[in-house]
């Protein structure tokens, strides 16, 4: 039998205002196991905690019930108090008589009645509590960052700066991501390359950081502090450590008509290529789908011109195994396909482009060397129509657009419109918008400058149809403020296309057993209070993989994720949560139901021998819970059909005892 002390808190008038605390402590004194009861103004204060410590010593208490606020608020406090008094911290139960009682009741009588019931339930539970000890696991002091855009770069630099080794895995031949493709950045209009490429160089030169470019994560096993990851380094047919990035091979490669991904297909690259001049690592890569030598053994020019001898047509994919303590997801975003929106004629005219294509058209390193020329005839466009919210805020059907606001489009469209008017004042610029959303430091001022200083014509309304005719694009749209339908003959139409998470995110989430929302954005552990952590321990989120973000926000989140990683990696050992599931092996029938529902991948199966009545041994398949991975959610205990799974600290018998106490 436990010896239980009951401590009822007034919380000033927060509880005492609607709950008769004296009546509550009196009512609970006759409950089974209760040997001590009292009430006090602020149990969480030092004086209040001292009352508990003294009572434990004086009355040899084995269990404590505190009737106070939500356990979210002070459970940790009272567990520490119990430990200070020499009790196991898990012998404390909180009856929440504030948030779930005094705050929601108006009259003293019903508030008091409910508080007594909640107290009885907690006492019934603590009667069945057993001391629990958290397990410990070591921490591998190395982090993995998946994705080498600005988010991954910033996270890696910050972690490395704290002294921990970091690996970046990037699927493209170079790091840099979307930001490397941008021209200027809002709201200060500094050039993206000027602020990004120094960071890329920092990454390359940092001896704590390894870059696995042209690589993918193949497999992830393990758990927080102890991830075991296989990385596939795709064959680039160039020896990375030898290649000097001189570009001689690129110049001589005879395959010249391969659409250049970096310029979004608006110009061509060779079969052997370096994505752009500031690429990191600056090494060549052979595209096996385009290279004649790899396809049919006929060519070999690059190998002949390479004085370093870096070309290796026999190179194979390489698999690297590494252990990590923490994993940061920074897989980023892409514009959605415009195939379902051809009322804007994107697939019918070269002069209807996306905003990302527009970035390349105005970028000095882009296909037109930064001159704004329209793709069809390389003429200067005199009338440009920007269309916002193409595919964003679209709830018509799931295959078509995205229901969310893509967040970055209002600002970059204002930037584009402003830059056009600045460089080419003879150009008419229209922006069709539904709402202009500019929350952010100096953002609205920036948009207003586009209108007031640069004379961009913002029109509230949507474009309904774009019809190519001759060398014009006939734009039909509504002007809701003027109450008119507009017909504009444009030379160029720019679509602010919705963004979506990179396609690699979904399979990665499966490997990580990290949760995603219906749009394939990674879910954060708490939308406000834990925004850079995944609910899966040891997995952190950086950048647009978690939701649409602009650069300032991405960098903030990247640094925040890094600080969380550092906080994990500085620990030598991790203390787990002892309130985890465990299987009663005698009852487990090995059906796998629990493993299938476990969102964390914490359950595995082993074959184990059990002694039988006739003294023979029988081998059975039984569930095993990895204590370092289990988060104690209890899904398995509900799913288990034989009742073999139970949650320590929240055993079915304890829950039933609580319910019984409430119903008594």
């Amino acid at each position, binding site marked *: 039998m436990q010896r239980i002390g009951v401590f009822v808190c007034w919380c000033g008038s927060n509880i005492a205002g609607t709950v008769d605390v004296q009546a509550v402590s009196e009512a609970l004194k006759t409950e089974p196991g209760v040997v001590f009861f009292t009430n006090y103004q602020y149990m969480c204060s030092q004086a209040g905690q001292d009352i508990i410590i003294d009572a434990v010593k004086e009355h040899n208490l084995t269990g404590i019930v505190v009737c106070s606020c939500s356990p979210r608020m002070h459970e940790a406090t009272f567990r520490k108090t119990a430990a200070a008094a020499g009790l196991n911290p898990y012998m404390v139960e909180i009856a929440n008589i504030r948030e779930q009682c005094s705050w929601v009741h108006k009259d003293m009588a019903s508030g008091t009645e409910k508080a007594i019931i909640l107290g009885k339930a907690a006492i019934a539970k603590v009667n069945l509590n057993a001391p629990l000890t958290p397990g410990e696991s070591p921490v591998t002091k190395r982090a993995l960052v998946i994705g080498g855009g600005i988010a991954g770069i910033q996270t890696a630099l910050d972690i490395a700066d704290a002294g921990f080794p970091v690996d970046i895995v990037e699927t493209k031949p170079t790091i840099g991501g979307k930001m490397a493709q941008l021209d200027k950045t809002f709201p200060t209009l500094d050039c993206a390359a000027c602020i990004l490429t120094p960071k890329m160089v920092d990454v390359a030169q940092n001896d704590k950081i390894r870059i696995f470019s042209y690589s993918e994560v193949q497999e992830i096993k393990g758990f927080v502090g102890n991830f075991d990851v296989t990385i596939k380094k795709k064959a680039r047919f160039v020896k990375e450590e030898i290649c000097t990035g001189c570009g001689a091979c690129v110049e001589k490669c005879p395959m010249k008509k391969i659409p250049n991904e970096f310029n979004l297909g608006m110009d061509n690259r060779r079969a052997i290529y370096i994505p752009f001049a500031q690429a990191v690592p600056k090494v060549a890569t052979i595209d096996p789908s385009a290279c004649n030598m790899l396809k049919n053994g006929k060519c070999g020019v690059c190998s002949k011109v390479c004085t370093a001898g870096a070309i290796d047509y026999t190179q194979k994919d390489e698999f690297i195994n590494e252990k990590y303590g923490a994993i940061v997801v920074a897989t980023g975003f892409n514009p959605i396909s415009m195939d379902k929106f051809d*009322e804007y004629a994107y697939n019918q005219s070269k002069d209807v482009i996306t905003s990302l294509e527009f970035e390349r058209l105005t970028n000095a390193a882009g296909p037109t060397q930064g001159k704004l020329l329209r793709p069809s005839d390389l003429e200067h466009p005199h009338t440009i129509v920007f269309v916002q*919210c193409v595919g964003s*805020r*679209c*709830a*018509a*059907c799931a295959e078509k*657009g995205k229901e969310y606001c893509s967040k970055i489009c209002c600002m970059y469209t204002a930037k584009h419109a402003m830059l056009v008017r600045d460089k080419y004042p003879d150009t008419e610029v229209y922006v069709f918008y*539904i709402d202009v959303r500019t929350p952010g430091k100096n953002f609205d001022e920036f948009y207003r400058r586009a209108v007031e200083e640069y004379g961009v014509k913002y029109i*509230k*309304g*949507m*474009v*309904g*149809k774009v019809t190519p005719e001759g060398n014009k694009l006939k734009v*039909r*749209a*509504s002007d*809701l403020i003027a109450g008119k*339908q*507009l017909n504009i003959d444009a030379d160029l139409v720019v679509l602010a296309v919705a963004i979506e998470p990179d396609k690699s995110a979904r399979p990665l989430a499966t490997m990580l057993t990290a949760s995603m929302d219906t749009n394939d954005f990674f879910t954060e552990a708490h939308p406000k209070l834990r925004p850079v952590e995944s609910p899966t321990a040891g997995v952190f989120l950086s950048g647009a993989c978690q939701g649409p973000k602009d650069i300032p926000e991405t960098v903030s989140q990247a640094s925040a994720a890094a600080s969380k990683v550092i906080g994990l990696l500085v620990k030598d050992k991790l203390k787990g949560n002892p309130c985890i599931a465990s299987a009663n092996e005698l009852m487990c029938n090995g059906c796998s139901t629990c493993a299938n529902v476990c969102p964390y991948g914490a359950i595995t199966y082993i074959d184990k021998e059990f002694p039988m009545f006739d003294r023979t041994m029988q081998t059975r398949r039984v569930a095993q819970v990895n204590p370092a991975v289990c988060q104690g959610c209890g899904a398995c205990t509900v799913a288990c059909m034989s009742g073999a799974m139970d949650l320590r600290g929240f055993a079915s018998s304890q829950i039933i005892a609580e319910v019984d106490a409430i119903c008594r």
Partner: protein
Amino acid sequence: MHNDSRKIADEIILRSGVNPRRCMKCGKCSGTCPAYEEMEYHPHEFVYMVESGEVEPLLNSKSLYMCLSCFACVDRCPRGVEPAKLVEAVRNAYLRQQDNKHMNADDVPAKLDDDLPQQAIVSAFRKYRK
């Protein structure tokens, strides 16, 4: 009167199966409507006015007979509002009242020419009368 109007609007919403509250007022329907210039009230206004219960002006508007039922607004609406179905329901609400019609059978012969396909006459009759 206002209550009556609200009742008619609710009936229109019910019969059309359209939920005007889904509208985010982007104006794409009116930006794409081929009959815009012939209409006094435009697709987005139909949605807005039915939502707010202001249906009297719509019921008496010639705009009802200018909608081509081409369904461009339905297909292109980013919110799946289906304005053309609402226009259809308003038109029906008018035509179903006693003695209301937009065209007499006697008026038809004068409008015909040698080539006009039967399809046009039946369609117009369906759209203009009970």
